[in-house]
């Protein structure tokens, strides 16, 4: 098995799907000769040429809207949004069109497309190169929302996303692109959409997370295990929509305590939904207040690094929150 980073795993997954299905193509800003600003598509232009790796105009709504049209016409577009922060111009196409097409056409027209975007902070990107936008899409029935936290899952999930007959939002932690490394099998395998992963077993409490924060949550869990003997279960949600409520609840039944961690801001972040589900369906198992450890409710990650550090979560902050909750 090859060791690779998150970015390479995503690239390999796309590459395999492009080899296997000539209908799969990639469009977006600078995805061609430039290989994407993060180099996720590097080498694909050389391999597949300008008819399948298409530099788009600087225009997100049409990157997505053209992708929808192509998907309606039975292609399999992968649309790259350069930063999640720039997905907003495409929200009309994503929410009103892609998400609603299947239901509104009585199940006749489908939109098999993937929209990829790097998300998240901690890279000096300030308010507009650090956003987490998953919550908006997780509120939109008809979409699927995926955020992988390991190279293995990233490759397996991007492949599932490309094959899925529905519009899939695929958010990639840019901070983790090169930082997160792991084993990735050569060749064909997929990871199913809609299944959370118990990344670490534990009995004292459950940490729910995804993306970069799931990675940090694992580090924090290991740390408190060593320092305090607290055994935190870590659930990596992987898919936010549709959510794997079964795994979410099963873990809670076991631990009775929940810490939900995301780098998106608190209010109406995805943690709210997890908390709401636990507070209704997990009521009888609740041993402590449901805790959310999230970014503050300010309009973005500040640029200057002390403020950025203050804003961002990290393994230490998560470990502290685990200790507090364990002590409840």
């Amino acid at each position, binding site marked *: 098995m090859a060791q690779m980073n998150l970015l390479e795993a995503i690239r390999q997954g796309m590459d395999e799907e492009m080899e296997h299905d000539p209908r799969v193509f990639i469009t977006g800003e600078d995805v061609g000769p430039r290989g994407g600003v993060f180099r996720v598509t590097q080498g694909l232009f050389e391999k597949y040429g300008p008819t399948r790796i298409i530099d788009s105009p600087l225009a997100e709504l049409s990157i997505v809207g053209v992708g929808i049209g192509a998907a309606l*016409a039975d292609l399999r577009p992968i649309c790259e949004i350069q930063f999640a922060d720039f997905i907003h111009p495409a929200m009309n196409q994503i929410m009103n069109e892609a998400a609603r097409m299947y239901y509104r*056409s*009585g199940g006749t027209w489908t939109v098999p497309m993937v929209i990829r975007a790097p998300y998240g902070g901690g890279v000096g990107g300030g308010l507009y190169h650090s956003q987490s936008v998953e919550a908006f899409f997780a509120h939109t029935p008809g979409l699927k929302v995926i955020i992988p936290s390991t190279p293995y899952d990233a490759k397996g999930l991007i492949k599932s996303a490309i*094959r899925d007959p529905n519009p899939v939002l695929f958010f990639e932690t840019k901070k983790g692109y090169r930082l997160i490394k792991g084993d990735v099998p050569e060749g064909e395998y997929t990871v199913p959409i809609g299944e959370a992963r118990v990344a670490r077993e534990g009995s004292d409490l459950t940490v729910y997370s995804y993306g970069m924060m799931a990675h940090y949550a694992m580090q924090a869990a290991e740390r408190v295990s060593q320092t305090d003997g607290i055994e935190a279960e870590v659930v990596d949600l992987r898919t936010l929509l549709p959510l794997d409520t079964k795994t979410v609840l099963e873990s809670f039944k076991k631990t009775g305590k929940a810490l939900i961690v995301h780098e998106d801001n608190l209010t109406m972040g995805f943690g709210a939904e997890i908390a709401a589900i636990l507070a209704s369906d997990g009521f009888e198992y609740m041993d402590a207040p449901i805790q959310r450890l999230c970014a503050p409710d300010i309009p973005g990650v500040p640029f200057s690094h002390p403020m950025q550090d203050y804003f961002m979560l990290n393994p230490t902050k998560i470990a502290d929150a685990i200790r507090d909750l364990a002590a409840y």
Partner: protein
Amino acid sequence: MAKNTTDKVRNGRATPTSRPSDSLTKDTLLEMYWKMLLSRRVDERAWMIHRQGKIVFHISAIGQEAIQVAAAYTIHLGVDYIVPYYRDLALVLCAGVTPEDFMISLYGKEGELSSLARQMPSHFGAKPFNIVSTSAPVATQVVHAAGMAFAIKYRIQNELQDPNDRTQPRLAVTSLGEGSTSQGEWHEAMNWAGVHQLPFICIVQNNHYAISVPVDKQMAVPNVADRAAAYGVEGIIVDGNDVLACYDVMHYAVQKAYRGDGPTLIEAKTYRMTPHSSDDDDRTYRERSEVDAWRDKDPLLRLANHLKAQGLLTDAVIEGYDKRARKIVDEAQRAAEERPYPPGESAIAPVYAEAN
């Protein structure tokens, strides 16, 4: 690099000397007349049953049938992609939707064609005829049409489709109102069509109003077609109430698209002879005299007069058509009324397609 064709903007007919419409047979001309008439009668009935309180909403194509029927008679129906807007009743009736289908959508009855009665009427769509499902936010469909045209070019370039295979879609045609060209969506779609020189036809049905807002509050140019040059797209203006002129320009644009010679914007100057929809009261924003003046330019009347002058149509034939239309519409209405409503629970239908 695309050509800038502002100066080529055409008024009326594409080729004044020999016109494509010249070779339309009598049968075809009468069929086109029949389609316009049928659409009109279906549409009028919708207004009537709305007034009777039997349905809650109708939005009309009355006055705009000519360009729609012309489009239908120039593309490969059922094969080419049609990405309509809510006024395209005549177009979709040509493409395979039946008056009964439409009536069922007005009543929101079970098994409704476009959406299983989930959508309001006139949100057209029919997968079997390659008519894409319509939403309400204006201009979004133009981007889809660009994407579908892109898919055609993609398949040809990547050798997934033979460019001359007539069983495959060879163009995408879409329409929208002039007001909707103010949307960023339209700009971006036109730009893609231009940059990739796609087999794409954008029909702008310029009826001079966006609900109450007249075109000069919408844009600072006299013609939407003037905007096409900004995208390297050819823009053509046509008298949208002259079905033969519409046929000529559509024929030109369709053949051009089939040849791989790029996109066309067709601005059909026309008029909405009814209020915006059954919810509207157009007396608040337009003079009756203006509405009356346009009544004289009614595309249906005009074609009738033209065909009569050519000796191809008589009042007796028209009467026969009207009778036939009435029968069809009566039956359609009856069928729709007799049909059950979908059960409430059927609202809860799959939101996601299953992999197959």
